[in-house]
C-alpha cells in the first residue's frame, strides 16, 4: 500500500444519512442486511477500487444483521474503522468484521428498545397526544421536531464514537455506562407509565349507588329565580357559593371508587392485559376483546 486511504468527514456524513434507510429492505431471511450494505456504499466505494474487492466487500456486508435501527450507528462506526484498516492493509478478515457486527448487535438492541421505543417515544407521544386532543397543533410539531433532533444527533455522535473507538467499542459499551442508561430509562419509563395508566386508561362506571333528596337551601331552587338574564346571574352566584344544581345528591359507583383509589379500574385492566400477554394471548385479540367488552357494558348500561 503506497498511500493510506482515509474516510473523510463528508464520507461519514453520507453514511450517516444513508443509515436513516437501514430498515428499508427489511426481510425475513437476513433482516437488515440490504440496508446495511446500502448504508456502507459511500465508504466501500472510496476504499475499494477493483471489481473483485468491491464484490467481496458487498458480499460480506450482505450477511445477516439486525439490531435496533438507531443503535446500529455505533456498529456502523466501528465497521467503518475496521474496513478502513483493512483497505490499508491490516490483517482483518471477514470473520472478524462479521464477529464484531454480531457481537454488538444483540446487547445494543437490548438498550435501544427500552430507551427509544419504550421510554422516549411513549413520553413524547403522550405529551403530543395530550396537546393534540385539546386541539393544539403544537403537539405533533413538538413530537416531530424533538424526536428527530434526538435521533439525528444520536445517530451521528454514536457513529462517530464507534468510528473513533474502533474495535475497542464492544468492550467499552459492555461496561457500566450501558447498564446505567438501561436502568435509568426503565426507572423513568415505569414512573411515567404509572402516571399514564392513571390518567389515560379511562373507565367510567355509570351505575348510580344512591340518590338522596337534599335539604332545602343546599340546592338551587330554579322555580324561585328571577326571570331572564338576572336569573342566570343569580343561579351562577348560587352555584359558586357551593349550592348543588339538582334536588338530589347522586352518588355513582365511579365517585365511590374515586374516593378510594382514582384510576383503580384502569390499573386492574392494565394488570389483566399484562397477565394475558404473558399467557401469550395476542395483543390484537386483547384489543378486540376489550372493544367487545366495551360494547357489552354500554348495552348493559353499566359504563
Amino acid at each position, binding site marked *: 500500500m503506497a498511500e493510506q486511504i482515509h474516510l473523510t468527514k463528508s464520507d461519514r456524513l453520507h453514511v450517516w444519512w444513508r443509515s436513516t434507510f437501514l430498515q*428499508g*429492505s427489511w*426481510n425475513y*431471511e437476513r433482516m437488515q442486511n*440490504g*440496508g446495511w450494505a*446500502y448504508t456502507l456504499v459511500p465508504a466501500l*466505494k472510496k476504499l475499494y477500487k477493483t471489481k*473483485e474487492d468491491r*464484490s467481496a466487500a*458487498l458480499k460480506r456486508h*450482505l450477511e445477516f444483521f*439486525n439490531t435496533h*435501527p438507531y443503535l446500529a450507528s455505533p456498529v456502523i462506526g466501528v465497521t467503518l474503522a475496521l474496513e478502513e484498516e483493512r483497505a490499508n492493509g491490516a490483517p482483518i478478515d471477514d470473520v472478524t468484521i462479521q464477529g464484531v457486527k454480531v457481537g454488538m448487535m444483540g446487547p445494543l438492541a437490548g438498550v435501544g*428498545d427500552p430507551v427509544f*421505543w*419504550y421510554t422516549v*417515544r*411513549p413520553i413524547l*407521544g*403522550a*405529551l*403530543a*397526544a395530550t396537546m*393534540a*386532543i385539546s386541539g*393544539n397543533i403544537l403537539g*405533533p410539531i413538538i*413530537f416531530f421536531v424533538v*424526536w*428527530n433532533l434526538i435521533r439525528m444527533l444520536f445517530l451521528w455522535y454514536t457513529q462517530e464514537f464507534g468510528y473513533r473507538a474502533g474495535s475497542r467499542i464492544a468492550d467499552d459499551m459492555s461496561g457500566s455506562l450501558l447498564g446505567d442508561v438501561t*436502568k435509568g430509562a426503565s*426507572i423513568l*419509563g*415505569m*414512573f*411515567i407509565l*404509572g*402516571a*399514564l*395508566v*392513571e*390518567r389515560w*386508561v*379511562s*373507565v*367510567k362506571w355509570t351505575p348510580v349507588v344512591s340518590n338522596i333528596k337534599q335539604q332545602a337551601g343546599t340546592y338551587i331552587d330554579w322555580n324561585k329565580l328571577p326571570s331572564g338574564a338576572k336569573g342566570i346571574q343569580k343561579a351562577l352566584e348560587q352555584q359558586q357559593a357551593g349550592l348543588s344544581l339538582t334536588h338530589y345528591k347522586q352518588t355513582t359507583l365511579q365517585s365511590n371508587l374515586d374516593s378510594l383509589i382514582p*384510576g383503580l379500574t384502569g390499573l386492574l385492566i*392494565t394488570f389483566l392485559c399484562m397477565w*394475558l*400477554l404473558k399467557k401469550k394471548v395476542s*395483543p*390484537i385479540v*386483547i384489543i*378486540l376483546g*376489550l*372493544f367487545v367488552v*366495551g*360494547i357489552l357494558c354500554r*348495552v348493559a348500561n353499566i359504563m
Partner: protein
Amino acid sequence: MSLNFIQIILVLIVAFFAGMEGILDEFEFHQPVIACTLIGLVTGTLGPCLVLGGQLQLIAMGWANIGAAVAPDAALASVASAIILVLGGKGQEGVSAAIGLAIPLAVAGLLLTTLVRTITTGVVHIMDKAAEEGSFAKIDLWQYIAICLQGLRIAIPAGLILAVGAGPVKAMLDAMPAWLTGGLTVGGGMVVAVGYAMVINMMATREVWPFFAIGFVLGTVSEITLIGLGAIGLSLAMIYLALSKVGGGSSSNGSGNGGSGDPVGDIIDNY
C-alpha cells in the same frame, strides 16, 4: 365531503411516507399524531384529525417493531381512519367511530407488512447478484425499490378507500347504531391499557416497580403536567443510580445500597 384532485394526490403522498416510515422507524411519519394531522392538514380538516391522531397515539403507545416481530400497523390505522373521518364529514363526532375502525385496519396492516417483508426477501437475493457484479448502483436501486414497496403498502389501500368515495363511507358510518359507537368509545378508553401492558411487561423488574407506584399516585394530581412528571421521573432515576453506587462497591448490586444492607440503620449507627 369529497376531495379535489390535488387533495387526493397529497393524501396519497402522506400515505406513501407513512408506509415508508412504518418500516424505517426514523422520522416517525407513521405515528398517528403525525400521520392523522398531516392528512387533516392537506384535506382542510385539521381540527378533527388532530384529535383523532392524539387519541390513536395513546392507543398505539406500545406498538413497536421489536426484533423480527411486527407491531400492529400504526401507519395503516392512522392513515385509513383519518381518510374515513374526513370523507365521513362528521367532524369531531366521527372520531370515536374512526378509532373503532382503526383497530381492525391495524390488524389488516399487519398482514400487508408481513407480505411486503416476504417479497423483500426476493429483493435481497437480487442484491446478492448485484454484489457478485460489484455494482453499487444496483444495490442502491433495489434498496429504493424495497422502500417504495413499503410506501405502496399504505398508499394503495388509501387510494382504494378514496376510490370508494365519500358516499359509501358515510353510509357505513351512519349505519352504525348508537350502542356501537358508544361501546367503541368505552372500549377505546380501555384498549390504551394493552399498549401500556406491553411496555410494562418489557421493562418491569422487582427493582423498578416502586417507581410505577409513585408515578401512579402522582398521576392523580392533575396539576402536574406530563413535563413536570418527566422531570420528577428523571430526577428519581438519577438519584437512584447515584445512590446505588454510593457505598455499594462492586460486590453488592442487587439491593442497591451496600454496607450492612440497612441504610437507615447505618445512619443511626453513625450518630
